[in-house]
């Protein structure tokens, strides 16, 4: 129990949030299940306490700067120009949902409602596809023990709904663009991705900000990967430098399904990625690539949990952190191989680079194996650049500082390259270039 006055919690759980489920709650109507989900979440959020550094899962990530601030629910009416959208859109994508301060913006969006693929705002979809959504929403990322998910679910009235039916696929990546424009806003983004058996989807979950304001994004993404389906989630966190970004993404992967994610964290003053992957069916697999690239006073925390519940599953994870100035990066990667998960093949690697003596990284790979016939490896390095790579570049005439910059850039760019969408890769290379240049050499 926290006894500290918590401006954040009292502000987000008062007023509108409290009024909505109670005031308009209608258990008997067609959306009774949805109202109930929110009402339960509100009850849960009110009962839970927000985490502090005394919680093992949050010991390196002190959210007290967030808790001291009061936020109000974001409002509709955030202004985003067509030119801004043009600069953020990707030529490789044709389907796009734009949320401005968490509110769906129809004018800027190009949903898809063709054939067996649906990309649409969740607000309408909960009525149109109630059966499909009801079985998943709030089920893959449960709220019971997580205050932030409970708060997000309390505010759940819209979000992105991405669905591919049996054996369906979408010809291009689906861009879900979340733009923050308002100061002091609490923004509760939500996404539900469903790939039915044999379906294929690539989704870009993109967070950006206009201006440099204090706001808080508390996002939840749930991904359901059915038998033999393939889902790729590219998460880009490019929030403003004073923002808070708290994100939970949870995926459940059924038999022979494949889940692949690229998580790139560049922005926000304090950010937290909580990633949960459940390998639920035999032969399921996941590949997680992560890059945290921060400087100044930024803190970026990634906690991942890969749960091997079934036999013959594979998981591969590579997470890299590059921290400059006085930035603080955290990686905690837990892998659990349950007793039934025989023939598991799992590899996890945490690689970290510190660009200044005052930058800091806490990394903790955790492997718990309860099955006896498995192949698992994990490791972490914190350090300096590779000596042989440095020598190779210098032997070709590059001065030490230039070689160092190039290798630092490469360390991060190697993760960006795995995204495989050329325009996006180019833009991120620019961002990586800017962040990895040391001041003395230019």
């Amino acid at each position: 129990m926290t006894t500290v006055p918590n401006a954040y919690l009292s502000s987000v759980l008062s007023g509108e949030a409290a009024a909505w489920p109670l005031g308009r709650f209608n258990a008997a109507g067609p959306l009774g299940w949805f109202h109930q989900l929110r009402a339960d979440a509100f009850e849960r959020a009110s009962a839970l306490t927000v985490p502090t550094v005394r919680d093992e899962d949050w010991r390196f990530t002190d959210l007290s700067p967030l808790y001291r601030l009061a936020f109000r629910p974001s409002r509709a009416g955030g202004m985003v120009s067509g030119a801004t959208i043009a600069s953020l859109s990707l030529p490789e994508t044709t389907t796009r949902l734009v949320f401005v301060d968490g509110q769906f913006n129809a004018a800027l969006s190009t949903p898809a409602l063709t054939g067996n693929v649906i990309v649409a705002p969740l607000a309408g979809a909960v009525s149109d596809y109630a059966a499909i959504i009801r079985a998943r929403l709030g089920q893959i990322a449960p709220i019971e023990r997580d205050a932030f998910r409970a708060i997000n679910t309390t505010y759940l009235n819209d979000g992105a709904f991405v669905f591919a039916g049996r054996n369906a696929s979408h010809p291009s990546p689906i861009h879900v663009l979340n733009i923050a424009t308002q100061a002091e806003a609490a923004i509760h983004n939500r996404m539900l991705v469903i790939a039915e058996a044999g379906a294929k989807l690539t989704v870009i979950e993109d967070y950006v900000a206009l201006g440099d304001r204090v706001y808080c994004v508390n996002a939840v993404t749930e991904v359901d990967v059915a038998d033999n389906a393939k889902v790729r989630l590219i998460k880009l966190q490019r929030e403003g430098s004073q923002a808070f970004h708290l994100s939970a993404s949870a995926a459940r992967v059924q038999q022979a399904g494949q889940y692949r994610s690229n998580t790139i964290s560049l922005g926000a003053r304090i950010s937290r990625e909580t990633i949960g992957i459940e390998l639920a069916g035999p032969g399921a697999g996941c590949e997680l690539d992560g890059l945290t690239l921060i400087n100044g006073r930024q803190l970026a925390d990634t906690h991942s949990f890969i749960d091997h519940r079934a036999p013959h599953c594979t998981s591969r994870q590579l997470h890299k952190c590059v921290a400059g100035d006085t930035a603080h990066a955290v990686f905690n990667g837990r892998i659990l191989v349950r007793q039934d998960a025989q023939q598991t093949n799992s590899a996890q690697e945490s690689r970290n680079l510190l660009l200044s003596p005052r930058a800091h990284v806490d990394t903790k790979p955790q492997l718990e194996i309860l099955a006896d016939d498995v192949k698992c490896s994990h490791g972490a390095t914190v350090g300096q650049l590779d000596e042989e790579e440095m020598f190779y570049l210098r032997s070709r005439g590059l001065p030490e500082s230039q070689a160092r910059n190039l290798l630092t850039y490469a360390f991060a760019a190697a993760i960006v390259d795995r995204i495989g969408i050329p325009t996006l890769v180019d833009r991120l290379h620019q961002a990586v270039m800017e962040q990895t240049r040391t001041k003395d050499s230019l």
Partner: protein
Amino acid sequence: MIRAGAPVLLEVRDLRAKVSGIEILKGMNLTIRAGEIHAIMGPNGSGKSTFAKVLSGHPDYTVTAGTTLLDGKSIFELPPEERARAGLFLGFQYPVEIPGVANAQFLRLTYNTIQGAHGKDELDPLEFDDFVREKMKLLEMDPAFLDRSVNEGFSGGEKKRNEILQMALLEPKLAFLDETDSGLDIDALRIVAGGVNTLANANNAVVLVTHYQRLLNYIIPDYVHVMEGGRILKTGGKDLALELESRGYDWVAAAVAS
């Protein structure tokens, strides 16, 4: 090609060097003149690769005695990058993979750095693309290797071709090729050797560090040196390599001892 009056490019005198506190080079002496091709042979652990790394300035190696002049100037005070700019090139035995750096970007950066050091014009990406593609033909390299990360996932032969491509771009005065033939099949060996032969001229010199005589069928050396125990035990012409191939190395040490 041996020419009596050709300028001396490299002069190594009584060179001694250590790695991790252990002396590996124990009095190397070598003189290389412009236009010459030298081969350094010798058993494992004789100090051949150490010699290459010491010359190019690898930070793990410490020079404890002796002098080395490149083009008349002492090099041991210089960091590796300045030795490269002075015209020294090391073809790596194990070229380093650098994921995240496109080969084209790397090649242009090194090319422009060396050009800049010589006061010559640098090339922009488009100009360089034309230029490098022309050079790649020499080594029968697929231009697709420009877009890949430096050496990442390249086969052994592709890595070695990429090394010789760098030699072609940087036009060093003295190229030290450390076991460039290892891991090459016969076709790759022919191509790589052809590249080296094209690049060798009257103004530069090439040193081949190799275990096998096979490479020397393709690149004919003017001198063959046998290294053992950190120094050169014997120097001969190209026929010495054939003799080593048939008789091994032991007789050289025995002959020197007697």
